[in-house]
């Protein structure tokens, strides 16, 4: 019967006893074989993600018509309205990562702990799946019909004397974008945090209760630390999702709020700016750089959060 030694920590009982010559070679061969298990994934990532990204990165340094090396695309992409675009995009992304992150977590927890909640859970999970991918023109229209100047909710609020537009709210600005983005960010959070909630053993809650801990203490000392790594990971996902969202903001604000993804769109598939595609690629490269920085920050945070677990 062929057997694979599974864990690195397991004793080599099954490989037989006796001296094994060339220990160093065997060990390094084994580690190569270990890494080889990731080959399909690595291969897929290189082909499906690495190559296109490299093409973009290379294109960012090329002149759009002649293909010769130039830094002007990068220069354009890091100044003026495009720098402003990066700032605004970061702002939107941070806010629509944290706020929906918290709300999504609350919803996930609510349905996870519901008694006899199997139907509710199923309905919410599937609905979340649908809404998490809803966006673009249809979503923009939904909110224009709701919170636009002649929208349904605007009408209700005006009826009770609280016209949002006279109180400074405008759907077609930064705050409007945040409100609309939550429509797909909250479901996304619900979906990605749910599997993590299974890590919260109910027995821990009972044990905490037996020791006299209230809800606050439970979350502060048990639930919070256990979930924090996963929570941070999910918030990071939400950040990325908001960062690259494009169609919704475009349909809603027509570029009057500078967002990097929209600016990329105007270079790469627009009707006005001809022959400057590589500035779009430079902007894309900028987005990749930013996310790399955010990932580094996240790694530091993660390490601190997961400290006590190891």
């Amino acid at each position, binding site marked *: *019967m062929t057997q*694979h030694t*599974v*864990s690195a920590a397991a004793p080599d009982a099954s490989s037989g006893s006796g001296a094994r010559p060339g220990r160093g070679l065997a060990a390094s061969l084994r580690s190569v074989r270990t890494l080889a298990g990731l080959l*399909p*994934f690595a291969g*897929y990532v290189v082909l*499906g*993600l690495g*190559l296109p990204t*490299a*093409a*973009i990165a290379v*294109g960012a340094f090329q002149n759009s018509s002649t293909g010769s090396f130039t830094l002007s695309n990068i220069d354009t992409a890091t100044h003026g309205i495009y720098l402003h675009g990066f700032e605004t995009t970061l702002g939107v992304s941070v806010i629509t990562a944290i706020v929906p992150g918290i*709300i999504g977590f609350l919803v996930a927890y*609510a349905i*996870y*702990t519901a*008694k006899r909640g*199997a139907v509710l859970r199923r*309905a919410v*999970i*599937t609905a979340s*799946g*649908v*809404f998490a991918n809803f*966006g*673009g023109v*249809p979503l923009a*229209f939904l*909110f224009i019909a709701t919170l636009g100047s002649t929208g349904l909710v605007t009408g209700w609020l005006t009826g009770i004397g609280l016209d949002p537009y006279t109180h400074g709210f405008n759907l077609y600005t930064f705050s409007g974008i945040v409100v609309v983005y939550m429509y797909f960010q909250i479901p996304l959070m619900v979906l*990605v945090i*749910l*599997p*993590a909630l299974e890590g919260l053993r*109910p*027995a*821990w809650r*009972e*044990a905490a*209760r*037996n020791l006299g801990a209230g*809800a606050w203490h439970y979350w502060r000392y048990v639930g919070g630390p256990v979930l924090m*790594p*996963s929570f941070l990971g*999910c918030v990071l*996902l939400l950040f990325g999702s908001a*960062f*690259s969202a*494009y169609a919704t903001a475009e349909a809603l604000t027509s570029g009057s709020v500078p967002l990097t*993804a929209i600016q*990329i769109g105007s270079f*790469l598939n627009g009707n006005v700016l001809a022959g400057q595609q590589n500035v*779009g*690629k430079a902007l894309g490269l900028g*987005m*990749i750089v930013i*996310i790399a920085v955010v*990932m580094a920050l996240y*790694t530091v945070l993660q390490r601190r959060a997961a400290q006590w677990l190891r």
Partner: protein
Amino acid sequence: MAALIGDELLEDMAAGPQRPAQPGWRHFPFWRWLILLIVGAYFVIPLVAALRFTGFSSFPSVVHQEGFPAAFELSVRLAAITTVLTLVLMLPSAVYVHLRLPRLRRLMEGITILPIVIPPVVLIVGVLQVAPGYLKSTPYLLALEYVVLAMPFAYRSFDAGLRALDLQTLVEAAQSLGAGWRTTLWRVLLPNLRAAMLSATVLTVALVLGEFTMASLDLYQTFPVWIVAFDQTSGPISVAASLLALFVTWILLLAISMIGGRRSRRGDGADVSLFSVSRRNTGGS
């Protein structure tokens, strides 16, 4: 599902004689319904507003519009292929990393977050530049790229699900009892990862059925592309088409989740019982 079992455990414990007087616990159900109500309202009201615009009469005509069946069928086909590829690729890889290369976990997270951050509009430009001719001429290039787009969500689902398991012990136990890799994966790990697999499947299918940018730039008329193309023709019908798309996707996902759920109830208890919370272990973890 493990979640279901944990639920019933809570019920048992709540009914037990040892329940201490805890005002916080008794009030929690109220908060739960309040949150669900508020968030639910936030999601439903815009739908109602849109419905007000289209009226119910637009819906039947949507299905009869030119191009609808073909576009829908293409999207469903792509969704099926993408989901299978994603599960086959990501599940073993996630298990493998958790098991053998735990130090690479963070790197994996980093890699799998990239597809989300690179805007699809940029990615498809890069893809079309490097993809070989024979792939570009089929819509399956889209499916292959959708796997890349689904990667972050699938990996995160499996990662969270695996963190919740005592993976090392499960696998060692299975191996020590003579199970080979395939059996371990199929009969021991998969049943414990049902929630994660369901979450990943739901995310992937919904992603493919809702993805617009890459399909439209690759010049294939998938369902979302068809909906937007229709927006120019007729406002109410287009909005009705989007609402219909939401609804149909939801039904599809419900069907998938029910199939997944039913199988778990019929499965052997033996696969699941030892390492997840079960009725028999009321004595605590």
